[in-house]
């Protein structure tokens, strides 16, 4: 996916700069959040929260990382926190977890709005399989394959080494392969 130009000098949270930042990065923030949570309304809420965080923290942004990396990091953290919070609300307290009947946690079908019509079914299967991956593998795969970021930037966003990202990607692909094979075999 095409990357927006970076705005390295946007370090003041004044309305003009903030407007530029929102205009430039809203699609990237929304798309990343949507790829992680896979619910459009939730992705909208996360996008709003991310920009409120950016507005609040922008004066303290020292430019140690690229602005895009910084915003991606906030987005990923917000999306994962949102997902955990939702899961906690769904599961309820410890008492409910012990005594409730085990519900089916199978993820629902998600159709990404940007996918080509020919790939709709395959993309839905991919997102379903992605939900079953461990958190870090899912984030690495989302940033590299869906957002189209190079390994170097994925490493910077995840605050890890290039080697670790490569390893996460190999494991993510292996995990997806296994889940998808089971999925297609059960469908046949």
């Amino acid at each position, binding site marked *: 996916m095409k990357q927006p130009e970076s705005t390295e000098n946007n370090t003041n949270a004044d309305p003009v700069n903030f407007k530029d930042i929102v205009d430039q990065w809203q699609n990237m923030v929304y798309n990343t959040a949507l790829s992680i949570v896979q619910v459009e309304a939730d992705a909208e809420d996360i996008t*709003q929260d991310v920009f409120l965080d950016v507005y609040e923290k922008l004066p303290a942004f020292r430019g140690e990382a690229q602005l895009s990396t910084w915003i991606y990091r906030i987005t990923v953290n917000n999306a994962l926190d949102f997902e955990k919070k939702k899961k906690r609300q769904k599961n309820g307290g410890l008492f409910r977890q012990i005594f409730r009947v085990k519900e089916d946690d199978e993820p629902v079908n998600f159709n990404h*709005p940007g996918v080509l019509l020919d790939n709709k079914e395959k993309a839905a299967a991919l997102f379903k399989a992605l939900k079953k991956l461990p958190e870090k593998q899912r984030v690495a795969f989302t940033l590299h394959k869906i957002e189209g970021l190079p390994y170097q930037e994925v490493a910077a966003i995840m605050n890890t080494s290039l080697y670790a990202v490569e390893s996460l990607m190999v494991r993510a692909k292996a995990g997806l392969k296994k889940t998808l*094979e089971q999925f297609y075999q059960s469908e046949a």
Partner: protein
Amino acid sequence: MEKNKLAKLVHETIEAMDGAERATPAPFLLTRLHAALRREEVSYWERITVFLCRPGVAVAAVLLVLVLNFFMYTYSKANQGSFQTIVTGADEYSMINPAALFDIENTQP
């Protein structure tokens, strides 16, 4: 399902997002953000009001005012006499007093 066919299908599925467009949020995000920022400002003052309206805080504030009043009252009562003396003394040496000015200017009898 045939093994090669399955492998191909899985590979195609993993690559299904290649060439996909970015999803876009609902329009007027900036307007919604400005509204949320305004709401946050209001809620900041609301939080302060809620804190001040807590029974504990309100009672403590009233007690503090009463204690301060009591001390002010007893202190002023205790120093009432000396305060009057000071005022009288200041009146005597005041440069604004026209009688005193007259004394300074007309030194000769």
